[in-house]
């Protein structure tokens, strides 16, 4: 999996290209927590090129949301295919992680 990182003002964007599973999630966790340790509090995860996510990937997002909450930080997900979204819905993660359709909308939500 490829992780492309980009800063848009105070928002850190992670673009995921490939599969977020038990093999690749440790790399994603390291990148995201490095950003948080460096002061990032607003995160957008662009899932447009994400093939699929397993529970290992959900675990990283759950940990990220829990870490950011006390600091009023935010993680917003966007551009997800329906079959990727299905996994979030089965896991019930769509109830506490905002999932929006496009990147612009995600950036706006993350700024709020």
């Amino acid at each position, binding site marked *: 999996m490829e992780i492309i990182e980009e800063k848009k003002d105070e928002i850190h964007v992670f673009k995921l290209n490939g599969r977020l*599973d038990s093999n690749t999630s440790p790399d994603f966790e390291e990148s995201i927590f490095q950003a948080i340790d460096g002061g990032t509090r607003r995160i957008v995860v662009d899932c447009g090129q994400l093939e699929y996510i397993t529970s290992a990937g959900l675990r990283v997002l759950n940990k990220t949301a829990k870490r950011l*909450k006390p600091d009023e930080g935010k993680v917003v997900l966007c551009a997800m*295919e329906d079959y990727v979204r299905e996994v979030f819905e*089965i896991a019930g993660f769509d109830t506490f992680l905002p999932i929006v359709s496009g990147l612009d909308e995600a950036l706006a939500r993350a700024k709020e």
Partner: protein
Amino acid sequence: MNKTRCTIRLRNDQSETERLCDRLIAFGNETGLTRKTINAVCVAVEELFTNIISYGFRDDGEHVVTVWVVYEDGTVRVRMEDDGVSFNPLGASDPDVKCTLEQSKIGGLGIYLARKLMDDFDYERRDGKNIIRLTKNAELE
């Protein structure tokens, strides 16, 4: 296409998930399955494989997990076999998926996803082996 099949033999090593999913995706594409069906199978099999190699083997030796996949008459059937300790995934309790972020826990989520993504899920312990059978009603392109 009437019937397609593939057999994947995996070592008990996390890095094998990449080859596992490459093979499953290639199988799905050859068969003409939709991305939705392919992804459901990939996620379910990946979760179960990860579970087997994380908890199934109590020694440091190399073990083989075998995955057979067959498509026939609108149905994908998967059989997974390992010689690890006896473990029935159907005996695991469901996680609470209607909770808040603070209450959310991750334990048990992988097996739960596998069960929910498949249409049928069976487990059998036979001759010292764990045998999991999955069935998914396939959508074709």
